[in-house]
């Protein structure tokens, strides 16, 4: 019996805690923006390694790059850390002048030394995105000679060939070219790792926000950087990992989060009727496509490739399953890119597809498998495609798996058909042309493995054309070359590109200034505020 008071006491304590929790249903603090988002893809916070969707966005808000582009008009490039630049007459040497009086969040001044260090570091560490810089002929051994500091606020960069300047500059807008605080990073260096193990979970940048905290699959917390010249209105931005979209919706409706990032079309339709919530969207430089492996004898027939392009109900998918989240797009360059063509020649035409299949000697259709990630969006699209394929007798069997499984199989060229997304690595058309229309070596142990390689497709003369387009310095001629490449791939390529992705965010009414740019790393909270 002695225990009894204690029991009552603890029971009362639990009761008060439970009730006080339900009482704390207030909105998020006015100086804090809370996102509900699926951020389980983050594996590192080091800009030299970041190559995932959510970490790229976080890097975009916390680091500055040498150059950036206007998110309203991608063709306008401006210097962010760079003040100005010149290109030598032979088109190989770039000289950059750095803005003075810039400071990192740590308080260290930002000089050419940091810029040169950051670019060299990315090449030397040689992580996934390093090829974006490496393609200009930099590698571990020569990068210290090719990227050189020439003054306290000046440095030069020498490429191996005379590439189109826009191509070079667009590559420098990518996350991998973010400027890292050399002093702070080197203070945390261990065994010559250039601070890699430390920066993986820490922050050394100069952007509008600094990263305070990252707990994997849980939360990322950004804090205002007091040293940034255009001070952010918000003191704090929190990205919460919420896996279920229905949960995201409920949290948003209750005001526990300010922005929900992964709602499905039905949920978007439902919340858009809520007077406290507004829906914002932006087309992204990401396309949805089917990759047809040319190692499969049926898919290798040109008539079959074409027939399958007539067996996708593009419009219905865009209007229903992917409503708000994608628009019909069939060329490999997303809308808004230099030279992108937007007329979509294919539509669902079963009779024509049957004709083409008959020409290929497959009058009664054939059976084929498709590797599908088990995310609801992908499964939904895959099933819709499965049913339209069936109308022409093409029996499509779906093989579900998680993203890692299907990708591994895809990268080993062991699939029949693969369904997935492709996001450009940088805003230049070469990013996609290089992967969809070029394949230097189609053998199993090739060094470069673009999408054309993954689908065992030899684009023939298109490879040379892609390489030539990169060197073309006249923008108009260059655009025309990309148009031709797209038409060729549309006509004969092993890719059924069907959608361009649109990113949707549902926000509370009082959120203002959360900007979604054309690429996954340009969703900016820098000037967001809450009224």
């Amino acid at each position, binding site marked *: 019996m002695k225990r009894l008071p204690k029991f009552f006491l603890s029971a009362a304590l639990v009761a008060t805690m439970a009730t006080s929790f339900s009482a704390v249903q207030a909105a998020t603090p006015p100086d804090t923006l809370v996102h509900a988002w699926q951020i389980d893809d983050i594996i590192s916070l080091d800009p030299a390694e970041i190559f995932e969707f959510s970490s790229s966005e976080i890097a975009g808000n916390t680091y500055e790059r040498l150059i950036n582009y206007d998110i309203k008009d991608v063709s306008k490039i401006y210097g962010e850390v760079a003040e100005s630049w010149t290109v030598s007459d032979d088109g190989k040497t770039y000289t950059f002048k750095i803005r003075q009086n810039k400071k990192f969040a740590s308080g260290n001044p930002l000089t050419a030394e940091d810029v040169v260090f950051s670019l060299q570091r990315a090449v030397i560490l040689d992580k996934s995105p390093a090829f974006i810089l490496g393609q200009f002929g930099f590698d571990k051994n020569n990068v210290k000679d090719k990227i050189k500091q020439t003054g306290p606020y000046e440095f030069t960069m020498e490429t191996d060939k005379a590439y189109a300047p826009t191509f070079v500059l667009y590559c420098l807008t990518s996350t991998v070219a973010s400027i890292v605080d050399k002093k702070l990073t080197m203070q945390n260096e261990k065994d010559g790792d250039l601070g890699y193990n430390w920066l993986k979970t820490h922050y050394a940048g100069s952007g509008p926000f600094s990263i305070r905290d990252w707990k994997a699959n849980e939360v990322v917390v950004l804090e205002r950087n007091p040293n940034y010249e255009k001070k952010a209105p918000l003191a704090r931005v929190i990205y919460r990992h919420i896996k279920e979209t229905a949960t995201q919706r409920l949290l948003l409706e209750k005001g526990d989060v300010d922005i929900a990032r992964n709602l499905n079309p039905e949920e978007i339709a439902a919340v858009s009727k809520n007077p406290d919530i507004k829906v914002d969207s932006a087309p992204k430089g990401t396309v949805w496509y089917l990759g047809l492996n040319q190692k499969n004898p049926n898919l290798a027939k040109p008539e079959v490739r074409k027939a399958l392009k007539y067996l996708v109900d593009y419009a219905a998918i865009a*209007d229903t399953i992917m409503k708000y989240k994608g628009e019909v797009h069939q060329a490999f360059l997303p809308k808004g890119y230099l030279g992108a063509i937007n007329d979509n020649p294919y539509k669902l035409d079963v009779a024509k597809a049957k004709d083409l299949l008959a020409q290929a000697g497959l009058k009664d259709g054939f059976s084929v498998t498709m590797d599908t990630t088990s995310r609801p969006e992908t499964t939904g699209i895959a099933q819709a495609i499965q049913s339209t394929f069936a109308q022409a007798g093409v029996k499509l069997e779906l093989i579900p798996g998680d993203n890692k499984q299907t990708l591994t199989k895809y990268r080993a060229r062991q699939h029949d058909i693969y369904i997935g997304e492709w996001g450009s690595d940088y805003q230049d058309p070469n990013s996609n042309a290089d992967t969809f229309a070029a394949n230097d070596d189609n053998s199993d142990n090739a060094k470069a493995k673009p999408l054309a390689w993954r689908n065992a497709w030899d684009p023939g003369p298109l490879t040379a054309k892609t390489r030539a387009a990169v060197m073309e310095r006249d923008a108009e001629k260059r655009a025309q070359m990309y148009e031709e490449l797209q038409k060729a791939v549309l006509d004969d390529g092993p890719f059924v590109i069907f959608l361009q992705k649109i990113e949707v965010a549902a926000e509370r009414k009082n959120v203002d200034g959360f900007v979604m740019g054309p690429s996954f790393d340009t969703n900016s909270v820098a000037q967001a505020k809450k009224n």
Partner: protein
Amino acid sequence: MAGAPPLPQPSGLRAWLLSAEPNSRWQARLGRGYLGWRSFTKNPLAVLGLGIVVLLLFVALFADFIAPYSPVIGGDLRTQRLLPPSETFWLGTDDQARDIFSRIIYGSRITLFVIVLVSIIATPIGLLVGTVSGYLGGWVDTVLMRITDIFLAFPRLVLALAFVAALGPGIENAVIAIAITSWPPYARIARAETLMIRNSDFIAAVKLQGASTPRIIFGHVVPLCISSLIVRVTLDMAGIILTAAGLGFLGLGAQPPSPEWGAMVATGRNYLIDQWWVAAMPGLAIFVVSLGFNLLGDGLRDVLDPKAAK
């Protein structure tokens, strides 16, 4: 003697069945069955369970005639997607514009397929392991029972998940995985029964007559264990359905577009708040069928278990 059973006595078939002095084995067995049926029908819930199971069988058998639409080919995505229950679509439509009612009807075949296969695979394994180890005893018993213990130590769904992950997703592999994980309890029951039977006088008598061990096990021990196993398997069927649905829900059981109930619930959860019927209808089907098997199992136990209060 053999040949036609004697004519029914004046009081008719019932009296013949209930006769205290049956004229043949036949009559005795039928009489026993009739008594069982009488006590079974006294339990209305058990009859309800039986009704549900019979309905499931009927629906699965005549799915082609009952279902108004195709279970896999959807209608027009633009106009027939996610419609609420109505006269045309009794239980509404799902995200691929397919009729949920038709899908549930066809899904009953998959459910039945899983139940039947699992019982066919798991029951004999459990029975064999249990009777052999119970009858032989000694090191055979120790080895077999420790293996059983190992399987029992794993949570069932987790072990099934591991097997499916190793074998690859698909309904056949799900069946194998469930069968592999569901035999140990049967082995345990069979062994317990065998331990009671092995020292009985009639076993000793057969032994003295020179019957071989296999003959004793299969001819005398197994038949006596079967009735309690049947009860246990029937009660387990609800669990089997749930495990299959669980695997389907996790994307490791039946694959799209096949109308497996668990997979249907999994798709439906994306639309849970506004289009509740997409998840609720297959969920209801799972619930009703599981309940049916549980009620039936309960009723059967009352009838078949000789040790139950009588």
